[in-house]
């Protein structure tokens, strides 16, 4: 009984970890390729949730989860073209400050557009309720969430490791100067990476809207967790053995990793950051 409970909590933590990974991966990609610490990443997550609620009104929940990331991804093109592009070669602290400011502006923009009060959001009734596997209880919605996240992550992995696009991006991460010497412009690749990154964050927002409060500061809430996941190492597993200690254990783990393996558990060695 005790062991079952422990296992149930671990699996539950893994499911949630997979979800956080959706948000953290974009953050990590943008940092790896462009050297930008994107503090505005949470804002795209929040926009994803709000835009999905607007789309849900007209087309329903399913299309909203697909269309909202596309709409916010399009916003990502402007974000990259007019803002990020100026900071690739600058001191990272500058891009950090600019995106931090942008996050605040975005939060206020949400307040102006949709009001400070949280917006109601429900999932379709068919997705509600538990699924029992043996003695384990899962939320049906979260299993679906896990499936969606798995598909998206597999797609990203394929894109980065099995396509010519991915080869250039990976080369660009390690030696942007060599890629340039070979006559390849990294710019369009960077735009695509940012669109993918903020699109994934928006999808995270759209998927989480039915189970968490949709409010203007939701982006600021998620960004801390996303950063911790990135620091801990590419693969985010938040451990929830003890509910009360769950929040703290995440940061303890981060401190240990920063001390003993600053690259992250599964992080690659990136030459330009060494």
């Amino acid at each position, binding site marked *: 009984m005790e062991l079952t409970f422990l296992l149930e909590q671990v699996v539950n933590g893994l499911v949630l970890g997979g979800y956080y990974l959706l948000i953290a991966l974009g953050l990590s990609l943008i940092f790896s390729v462009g050297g930008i610490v994107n503090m505005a990443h949470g804002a795209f997550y929040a926009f994803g949730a709000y835009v999905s609620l607007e789309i849900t009104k007209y087309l329903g929940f399913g299309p909203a989860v697909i269309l909202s990331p596309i709409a916010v991804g399009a916003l990502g093109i402007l974000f990259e073209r007019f803002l990020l592009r100026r900071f690739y070669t600058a001191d990272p602290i500058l891009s950090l400050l600019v995106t931090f400011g942008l996050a605040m502006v975005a939060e206020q923009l949400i307040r102006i557009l949709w009001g400070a009060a949280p*917006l109601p959001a429900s999932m379709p009734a068919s997705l509600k*309720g*538990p699924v029992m596997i043996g003695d384990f209880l899962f939320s049906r*919605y979260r299993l679906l969430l896990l499936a969606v996240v798995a598909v998206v992550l597999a797609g990203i992995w394929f894109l980065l490791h099995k396509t010519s696009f991915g080869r250039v991006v990976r080369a660009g991460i390690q030696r942007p100067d060599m890629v340039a010497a070979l006559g390849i412009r990294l710019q369009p690749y960077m735009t695509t990476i940012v669109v993918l990154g903020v699109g994934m964050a928006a999808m995270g927002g759209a998927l989480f809207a039915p*189970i968490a409060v949709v*409010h203007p500061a939701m982006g600021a809430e998620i960004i801390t967790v996303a950063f911790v996941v990135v620091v801990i190492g590419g693969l985010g597993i938040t451990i929830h053995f003890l*509910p009360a200690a769950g929040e703290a254990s995440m940061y303890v783990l981060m401190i240990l990793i920063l001390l003993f393996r600053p690259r992250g558990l599964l992080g690659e060695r990136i030459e330009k950051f060494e």
Partner: protein
Amino acid sequence: MIRHDRRRVLQAGAAIAGTCALGFPTIARGQADKLKIGHLTPLTGFLGALGEYAVLGIRMAEEEINQSGGVMGRPLEVMSEDSINPATAATKAQRMLERDGATVVMGEINSASALTISQVADRNKRLFMSIGARSDALRGKSCNRYMFHVDIPNTVMVNAVGKALLRDNMVKGKKFVTLTADYVFGHDLLRAAKIFFAANDGNLIDDELVATDVTDFSPYLLKIRQAKPDVVCSNLAGNQVTNLIKQYAEYGLPFPIVGFNLNTADAWAAGEGNLSGTWPTVWHHDVDTPGSKTFVAAFIKKYGKPPENHAWIEYVSLKIMAQAMSETKSTDSEALIAYFEKGAQFDILKARKGWFRSWDHQLMQEAYPFTVKPKGQAKNKWDFLALGPAIPGADESLEVLAPTREQNPCTM
């Protein structure tokens, strides 16, 4: 070309500055006798959504009072600011009293911030009307002579829901699990809940303290499932309650859920079809009195949405303060305290009038339990709550639900 533009900008700037120098002194003289009220409320963080309604409510009262001639012939000016956290709240309260010319300080929802502001009020010997904070401790061991309380205390909220639970045979011999907001308000609410369980043979088998920034309740829900309680009970606050309600519906646990604290904005944010159970409230826009109906209609006309309980309470609080200042013809703390303590009656848009108890400065008023309307009956997204009858009943004293002097002693 650039130089030319710059010159024109400078000229325009000088023109504006000149107008200011000539025009503003007269306006400033005209406004010199404004009666300033310091207003602090959380506008960000887990109570921020409630604070937004608080500001809308007090603004509306301010406008109405000023349209009908102000207080003692002077217009009111409510200076609203985000109280942010208990330490900042205290600093801002001190600044408002000392530098900004505030006569009194009003507001707050967060009990921890209300406590620090009350200490500032006490030091400065100026009035603090604590409008939306509910901890019993503020009325008890932390009470002070300069603080008055408008919202119902935790004990009343517990008793309001408790009455409905007792009626439905959901307390005696039943196993309860509680989730409690991990700050002064939650601890205080848990204390009141424990007193209620003990008095009525309820059996509290587990309690979880939940940090105010927690958004994922799944680990708690799994733990609740293992505990197999008869009733799950929420002592949470703000966004926490909304998250719990949504995820409780998501996991579809079979145990009935009730709560000792819920604000209508938090319920609205959960969305229809997620909320169930019995909850307490201090006011709701369906309260069936002529005063409430007029207020709700005017609020909807002005802001395009119905008022939340924090909008109502801020509205009536400023009216209470204006009445006290007009009647005493004074803004002096001692005169106002004497007026409130002698039991002056206030129209708070409910069936019965409210008055402050002299020994703990608590406004005595009706409260209401509410449940959720059956699916499909809501006329709009604000309409899915079913308001219960006012308690105490018309034939009972308003004090029957409130903590007694023995339960929550206060020495000023």
